C-alpha cells in the first residue's frame, strides 16, 4: 500500500513537472511569438508605409501632371491638335501611361489617337465634374485590360473637335501592381489597393487579380471573427492603419492595412507570418532547438538516472527474489510440505515447490503445465482442486481438507493437509496451496491406535494368560494334590504309592516345564533376553540333539534321520544354548506329534550367505505326523496356542513352545515358517545366519598320516558327500555301498601293500552290517587299519558289539570333517586309543562325596539332603552365603568335594559368597567346584553364575540326571574313596 502510494505520488510529481514545463514553455513561446509578431509587423508597417507613400506620391504626381498638361493645353490654345498630340506622346513616353483621355462631363471620351467612347466613372464622375476634384477609378473603361484611370478637371477645351473638361491618363493594373511589389518577402507577399467595401482596385497577385472583393474572401477563407472584420472595415473607412494576424486558407498571415489617403482606399498587405518573421523565427527556432536540446539532455539524464536507479532497484529486487526463491527451494527441499501458487483467474501455475517430484513423483515441469496432473496421484479418485470450491473461497479466506497421495514411482503413500488460501497480490487474485505433510502424524496416530489395540489385546492376553495359566497350572496341581491325597490314603499299598508317585512326578515335571516356558516367554517378551554369542560346533550340537532325541524317537519306534546338504561350516559364532532350544523344541514337537512308527527327518542345508564372513543355514524338521489345520498354522506361533483335537488332547503341552521358538528365531534375526496338512505331517523351516570365526584350522597330527580312506555306506549319496568333504582335506576317498564291497576293497588294497589309512563303516547296512564287515576286514587284513563306525544310533548301545568286531571308534551321523579328525586323532597319536566320544554315564558319581550345601529354604534343603543321601553323598548345610563362606574357610583342603550354592539367600547371596570364596586365601579357593543351584534358570542367570566364579548351574527343581551329569563332569568319574 505504501509502495503504491509512493508510486502514485511520484507519477503525480512527474505529471506536475511536465505540466508546469509545458505551461511555462507555452507562456514563454507565446510571449516570444507576440514579441516577434510585434517586431515583424513593425517591420512590415515600415516597408508597406514606404510602398503606400510611394503609391500616394504616384497618385499625386499623376494628378499634378494632368493639371500641368491642362495648363499647357490652355496656354497653347485650340486648333493645334497635332502639337498637342506630339507633346502628349512624348509625355506618354516619359511617364509610361497607357492612354491619354479627353473627357466630357458625361463621361464621353476621346483618346489621343482619336478613339471615342464612354467611360464608366460611376460616382467618381460627380466628384470629378461637379466637385472639381481629381479621381482615381478602376475598371472604368472596357479596354480588354484591367486599367486604372487618373483624372483631373481642367479648363474646358477642344481636341480634334471634341469638347472636354476633364483630362485623364490610364495605367494597366499590372504595371501599377509591379510598383506595389516588395522584394523583401520573396514574392510571397500580396498587396492590394482596395476600397473600404473590399472591392479590389489593384493587386500584386502573380497571375493577375482574381479577386473582385477581398473582404468577402477574408470573411470566407480566414479565421478573422466578425467583430475583427467590423473593426477592420471601420478602420478602413476611418483611415486608420492596423495589423492583425490571421489564418487564411490554412496559412498564418500578417494582414496590414494603411489608408492610401484617397477616398476610402486602403493599401492591404497580406504576408505569410513565416515570411514576415523569417529572421525572427530563425532566432526563435534556434532558441527553441537549443532549449529542446537542453531539455532533451536534461530529460535524457533524468531518464538515464531513473533507468539506472530502476535497474539497481530491479537488480536488488531480482537478487532478493532469487535469494528468496533459493531459500524457499532449500527450505522446501528440506521439508515434506508442498507449496503451490495458482493464478485465480485461469488456475495457471505460478509456482510449485521443487520437492514435488521427491514427494509424489511428479516432475515440477509437468505440474507447471497443468496442475490437474496431480490428480493421478490422489488416492481414492479424489479431485485435487475442484474449481467450484476454489472459486467459492472468499478473498483472504481459506479452506482445508485431508488427502492422501501416492508417489508415482515408489508407490509410497503420504497424507497431507491441503490448505488453500485465496489472496490478492497487487490486485491479482492468487490461490496459495499448502500441502502440509501429515504422514508422521498419521502414522503416529495409527501406531497409537495399534498400541491401544495392542494394549487391549495385551489386556485380553493377560486375561487369557491368567485363564490359561489357571487352567494349565491347576491341571497338574490337581493331579499332584489329588494323588498326594490318594497316596496318603493308600500309604499301606506300595504298588499304589509307586503308581501315585509316578503320576505326581509326571505332573510335577509338566508343571515345571510349564513354569519354565512361561518364565522364558515372559523374559523374551519383556525384551530382557539377550543372546550369548560364542563359537559353537555344529557337529557337537547335532551330536547332543541326537543324544537327547534319539531315545525319545526310539521309544516311539520312530525313524529319526539327520541329513546335511552342502558343506555347512562346522564352527560358527552364535548362541548355542538358544539354537539348541529352538531345534529341540521343533524336534521334540515332531516326536511328540508324530505317531509311533512315524518318520522324522532333520536336515541342515548350507545356503549362500549375504557376505563371505557369514554362514546361512536352513534347518528343516519334517515329520509325517498329525499335521495341522490351515487355520491353526496361522496361530501356531501365538502363546498358548494348541490345536484342539482328539489326538492333541492326549498330548501334554504348554502351548508356549512354538511362541518361544518364534521369539528366539526373531531374536537371532532369522525366519521360521511352517508347511503342514492335517494327517500328512508338518515341515518347520528355520533359516539363521551366523558369523564365521576367523579361520583357525585345528592342527591334527592325523592329517599327516591319513591320505586315503575307505567309506562304506549303502547310501551312495553319503559316500559321495564324504568323498567331496575329505578330498577338500587332501584325502583320497574310495567308497563301497555294501559291506562285501568294502571288505573286497580293503583286502585288495592290503594286497597291494597300500592299505587305506582309515576305514569308515556305516553301522547299519543291508546284508553285511557294520560289525560283520569290520570283523571280516579284521580277519583278512588284521588290526593295522583303524576302523570307525558311522552311526545314527546311540553309541552306547552298540559299543560293546562294535569293539568286539574290531571297531576302534565311533562317529555320529552326519559326517563332519572336524568330527572325523577329532575321532581319528587319538588313534594316530596314541593319546587314548579308542577313546569314546559319546557322553559319559555318571551313575554313582556322587557316592562318597562331601558337599557343602548353601540353602536358606528348609524344605528345599531337606529334599536335597535326602536326595544326596540317596546318591551316597554327604552334605553339610549352610543357611546363607555368609555361613557357607565361613564353613569353607574353616574347612581343611580336600574336605569338601564341591559347593552347591543357592543364589538367593539372606545375609549374603550365592554370587557374593562365591566371589568371597574365590577371593579367599583358602588353598582350594580357586579350584573347589562351585555349582549354582537356583530357581533362576535363564541364560543370563547361568552367565551371572559363571561370571561370579561358579563352575556350573543347576536349575531348581533339581533334575537328578542333570545333577549327576554336571557333578560327574566337574568331579570326573573317579569315585572318591573316603
Amino acid at each position, binding site marked *: 500500500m505504501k509502495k503504491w502510494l509512493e508510486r502514485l505520488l511520484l507519477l503525480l510529481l512527474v505529471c506536475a513537472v511536465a505540466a508546469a514545463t509545458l505551461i511555462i514553455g507555452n507562456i514563454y513561446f507565446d510571449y516570444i511569438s507576440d514579441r516577434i509578431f510585434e517586431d515583424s509587423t513593425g517591420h512590415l508597417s515600415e516597408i508597406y508605409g514606404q510602398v503606400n507613400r510611394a503609391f500616394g506620391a504616384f497618385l499625386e504626381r499623376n494628378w499634378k501632371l494632368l493639371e500641368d498638361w491642362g495648363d499647357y493645353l490652355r496656354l497653347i490654345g485650340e486648333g493645334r491638335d497635332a502639337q498637342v498630340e506630339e507633346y502628349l506622346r512624348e509625355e506618354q513616353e516619359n511617364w509610361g501611361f497607357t492612354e491619354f483621355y479627353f473627357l466630357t462631363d458625361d463621361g464621353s471620351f476621346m483618346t489621343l489617337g482619336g478613339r471615342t467612347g464612354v467611360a464608366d466613372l460611376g460616382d467618381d464622375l460627380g466628384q470629378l465634374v461637379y466637385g472639381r476634384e481629381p479621381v482615381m477609378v478602376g475598371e472604368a473603361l472596357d479596354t480588354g485590360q484591367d486599367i486604372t484611370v487618373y483624372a483631373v478637371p481642367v479648363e474646358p477645351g477642344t481636341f480634334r473637335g471634341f469638347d472636354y473638361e476633364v483630362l485623364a491618363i490610364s495605367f494597366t493594373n499590372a504595371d501599377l501592381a509591379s510598383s506595389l511589389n516588395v522584394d523583401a518577402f520573396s514574392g510571397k507577399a500580396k498587396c492590394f489597393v482596395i476600397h473600404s467595401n*473590399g472591392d479590389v482596385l489593384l493587386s500584386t497577385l502573380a497571375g493577375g487579380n482574381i479577386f473582385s472583393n477581398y*473582404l*468577402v474572401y477574408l470573411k*470566407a*477563407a480566414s479565421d478573422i471573427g466578425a467583430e475583427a472584420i467590423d473593426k477592420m472595415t471601420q478602420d478602413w473607412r476611418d483611415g486608420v492603419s492596423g495589423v492583425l494576424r490571421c489564418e487564411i486558407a490554412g496559412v498564418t498571415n500578417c494582414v496590414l492595412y494603411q489608408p492610401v489617403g484617397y477616398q476610402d482606399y486602403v493599401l492591404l498587405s497580406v504576408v505569410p507570418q513565416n515570411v514576415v518573421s523569417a529572421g525572427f523565427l530563425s532566432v526563435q527556432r534556434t532558441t527553441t532547438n537549443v532549449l529542446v536540446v537542453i531539455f532533451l539532455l536534461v530529460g535524457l539524464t533524468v531518464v538515464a538516472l531513473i533507468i539506472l536507479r530502476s535497474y539497481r532497484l530491479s537488480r536488488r529486487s531480482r537478487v532478493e527474489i532469487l535469494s528468496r526463491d533459493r531459500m524457499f527451494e532449500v527450505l522446501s527441499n528440506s521439508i515434506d510440505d508442498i507449496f503451490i501458487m495458482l493464478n485465480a483467474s485461469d488456475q495457471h501455475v505460478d509456482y510449485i515447490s521443487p520437492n514435488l517430484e521427491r514427494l509424489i513423483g511428479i516432475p515440477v515441469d509437468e505440474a507447471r503445465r497443468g496442475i490437474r496432473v496431480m490428480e493421478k496421484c490422489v488416492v481414492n479418485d479424489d479431485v485435487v482442486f475442484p474449481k467450484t470450491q476454489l472459486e467459492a473461497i472468499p478473498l483472504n479466506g481459506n479452506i482445508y481438507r485431508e488427502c492422501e497421495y501416492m508417489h508415482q514411482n515408489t508407490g509410497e503413500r503420504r497424507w497431507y493437509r491441503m490448505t488453500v488460501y485465496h489472496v490478492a497480490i497487487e490486485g491479482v487474485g492468487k490461490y496459495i496451496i499448502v500441502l502440509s505433510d501429515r504422514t508422521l502424524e498419521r502414522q503416529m496416530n495409527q501406531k497409537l491406535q495399534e498400541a491401544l489395540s495392542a494394549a487391549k489385546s495385551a489386556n485380553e492376553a493377560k486375561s487369557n494368560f491368567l485363564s490359561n495359566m489357571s487352567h494349565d497350572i491347576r491341571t497338574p496341581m490337581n493331579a499332584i494334590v489329588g494323588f498326594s491325597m490318594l497316596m496318603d490314603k493308600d500309604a499301606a499299598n506300595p504298588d499304589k504309592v509307586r503308581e501315585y508317585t509316578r503320576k505326581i512326578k509326571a505332573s510335577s515335571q509338566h508343571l515345571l516345564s510349564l513354569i519354565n516356558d512361561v518364565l522364558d516367554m515372559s523374559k523374551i517378551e519383556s525384551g530382557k533376553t539377550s543372546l550369548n554369542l560364542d563359537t559353537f560346533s555344529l557337529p557337537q550340537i547335532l551330536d547332543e540333539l541326537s543324544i537327547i532325541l534319539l531315545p525319545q524317537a526310539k521309544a516311539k519306534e520312530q525313524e529319526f534321520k539327520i541329513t546335511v546338504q552342502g558343506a555347512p561350516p562346522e564352527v560358527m559364532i552364535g548362541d548355542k544354548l538358544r539354537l539348541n532350544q529352538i531345534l529341540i523344541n521343533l524336534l521334540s514337537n515332531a516326536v511328540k506329534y508324530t505317531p509311533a512308527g512315524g518318520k522324522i527327518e532333520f536336515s541342515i542345508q548350507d545356503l549362500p550367505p549375504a557376505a563371505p564372513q557369514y554362514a546361512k543355514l536352513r534347518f528343516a524338521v519334517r515329520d509325517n505326523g498329525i499335521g495341522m489345520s490351515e487355520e491353526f498354522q496361522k496361530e501356531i506361533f501365538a502363546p498358548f496356542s494348541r490345536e484342539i483335537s482328539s489326538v492333541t488332547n492326549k498330548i501334554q503341552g504348554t502351548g508356549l513352545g512354538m511362541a518361544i521358538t518364534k521369539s528366539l528365531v526373531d531374536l537371532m534375526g532369522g525366519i521360521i515358517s511352517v508347511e503342514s496338512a492335517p494327517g500328512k505331517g508338518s515341515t518347520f523351516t528355520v533359516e539363521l545366519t551366523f558369523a564365521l570365526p576367523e579361520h583357525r584350522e585345528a592342527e591334527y597330527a592325523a592329517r599327516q598320516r591319513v591320505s586315503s580312506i575307505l567309506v562304506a555306506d549303502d547310501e551312495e549319496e553319503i559316500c559321495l558327500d564324504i568323498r567331496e568333504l575329505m578330498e577338500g582335506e587332501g584325502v583320497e576317498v574310495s567308497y563301497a555301498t555294501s559291506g562285501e564291497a568294502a571288505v573286497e576293497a580293503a583286502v585288495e588294497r592290503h594286497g597291494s601293500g597300500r592299505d587305506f589309512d582309515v576305514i569308515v563303516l556305516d553301522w547299519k547296512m543291508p546284508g553285511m552290517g557294520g560289525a560283520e564287515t569290520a570283523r571280516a576286514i579284521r580277519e583278512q587284513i588284521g588290526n593295522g587299519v583303524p576302523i570307525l563306525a558311522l552311526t545314527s544310533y546311540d553309541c552306547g548301545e552298540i559299543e560293546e558289539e562294535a569293539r568286539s568286531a574290531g571297531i576302534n571308534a565311533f562317529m555320529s551321523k552326519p559326517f563332519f570333517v572336524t568330527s572325523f579328525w577329532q575321532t581319528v586323532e587319538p588313534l594316530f597319536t596314541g593319546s587314548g586309543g579308542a577313546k569314546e566320544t559319546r557322553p559319559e554315564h555318571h551313575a554313582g558319581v556322587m557316592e562318597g562325596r562331601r558337599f557343602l550345601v548353601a540353602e536358606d529354604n528348609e524344605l528345599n534343603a531337606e529334599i536335597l539332603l535326602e536326595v544326596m543321601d540317596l546318591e551316597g553323598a554327604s552334605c553339610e548345610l549352610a543357611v546363607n552365603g555368609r555361613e557357607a563362606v565361613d564353613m569353607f574357610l574353616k574347612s581343611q583342603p580336600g574336605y569338601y568335594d564341591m559347593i552347591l550354592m543357592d543364589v538367593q539367600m539372606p545375609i549374603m547371596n550365592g554370587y557374593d559368597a562365591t566371589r568371597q570364596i574365590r577371593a579367599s586365601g583358602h588353598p582350594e579357593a580357586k579350584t573347589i567346584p562351585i555349582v549354582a543351584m537356583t530357581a533362576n534358570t535363564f541364560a543370563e542367570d547361568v552367565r551371572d553364575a559363571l561370571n561370579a566364579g561358579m563352575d556350573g548351574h543347576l536349575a531348581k527343581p533339581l533334575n537328578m540326571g542333570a545333577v549327576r551329569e554336571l557333578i560327574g563332569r566337574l568331579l570326573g568319574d573317579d569315585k572318591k574313596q573316603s
Partner: protein
Amino acid sequence: MKTRRMLCLVLALILALALCACGDSGDGGAITIMGKKSDLDKSYMQEIFRHYESSTGGKIKLISVEDAEFEVEAARRFENGEGPDILMHFNNADLSRFDVAEDFLYLNDQPWAGELTDSARNYCLDGEGNLLGLPYWESSVSGCYYNKTIFDSLGLKPAATQAEFDTLCEVLAQTGYTPICWPASGCCWMFQFALDPVFADDPELLSKINANETTYAQIPAVLGMAEWIDSAAARGWFGGDYMDTGWDQISPMLSSGKAVMTFIWDTWFYTDFKGGEYTVEDFALMPAFLGTADKGTYEGGNLNMMMVNKNGDRVDEALDFLKFCATPENYNVAFEGISTVSTFVGQNTNIESQMVTNAKPSIAALERVSTASTRVYGYSDVDVSECINSLLTGKTDPEGCVAMMDEKRIGEAKDRGIPGF
C-alpha cells in the same frame, strides 16, 4: 381534224416525256436529302421538312442511313454518281472522303449567307473561306462553366488569363474546394477545347499537320496542354477521385458545390444537369484555360450543315429548299423552344442560356470553331484521353504523352488512307 390529231399527238408526246422524266428520277420530283438516321430524326429537322412540304407543296425524300454506315455509304454514292440532292454532314475530317470541290456547290453567294452568325458561318467554311453548307443544327458554347455563387462568396472574379485561372484554382483548392471537375473516366471532349486554338488560330499549322509535315511533338502548345493537365492534377485541382469521375458524376459534383468549375457546354446544363444545392442559375461561363491559350478559348458548336450536290438532279430545288430553311419565319418555326445558341441572326424562338448571353462579349472574342476534332486528320478524343490518362496515372511523362498522341493520330490517318501518311 388533222390539227386536233397533231395537237393530241403533241400532248401525248409531252405527257409521255413528262411520265418518262418522272420515271427516270424515281422520286416523283422530291428533293432527296441524305443523312444519318439520328440526325434526320431530330425534331427541328422533321419540323422544317414538314413545314417545307406543307408550305411549298414540294416533296422531300429522306435517305436515312445508319449512323455507323453513313460516311462510307455517302462517299460511295457520290463516287458512283448516286449522290442525293442534299447531303447532311458535319464539317469534319470525314469530309475528306469526298471531292468537295467537285461534289458540292459553294454557297457564299446565297442570299441567306448574311443571315448566319459569325460563328455559324465560320464553322461552315472550308480552308479557303468557301461556304460549304447551310448550318441547321442545335448549337452550344463550350467553355469553362463555373459556380458564380461560390465565386461571389469568396470575392472571386472569373479569370481573364491562364495565370489568373491557375491562381483561381490555387485559391479554390486552398479554401477546400475541388476547383475543376475533371471526368477522366470515359469523357474526352476537354482536349478538343484545348487544341482548337492551336489549329484554329493557325490554319497553316492545321494544313501542315494534316499533310503529316509536322507533329504534335513539334507544337509547343500541345506539350503545354499535357504539362498543364499534369500539373493541375498534381496540385490537386482535379480533386482526388478524378480518375474514377465519369459522365454521371459531373452533375452531382457541380450541384453539390464539391467542384466549382468544369469544361463543358451550355446545353448540358439543360439536358443532364440535375440541380441540388446549386442550380443552373448559379453557374456562369468563362473561357476554358487548358494551357494552350493565354486568354482562354470557347468552342463553338459542331453544326450539321446541308450541302448541295452540284451534280444532283434538283440543284435549283435544293437551293430553294435551303433558302426556305434560312428564312427567319421558317427557322424560327423549326427551332421554336429548342435550347441552342442562335445560328441565325434573326433566330429568336430558340432558348439561349443566360450563361452564354452574359458571356457573349467574351465568347465573341475567344470562340473558336471546333477544329481539332473536325479538321485534324486522325484526331480522336478517345485516343487523346487514353494518352492523357496514361500521363495522369504516372505511366508516362508529358513528352511521352504527346508522343503517344502523335502515334495514335498518325496510325488512324494511315488506317484511313489519308494522303501523306
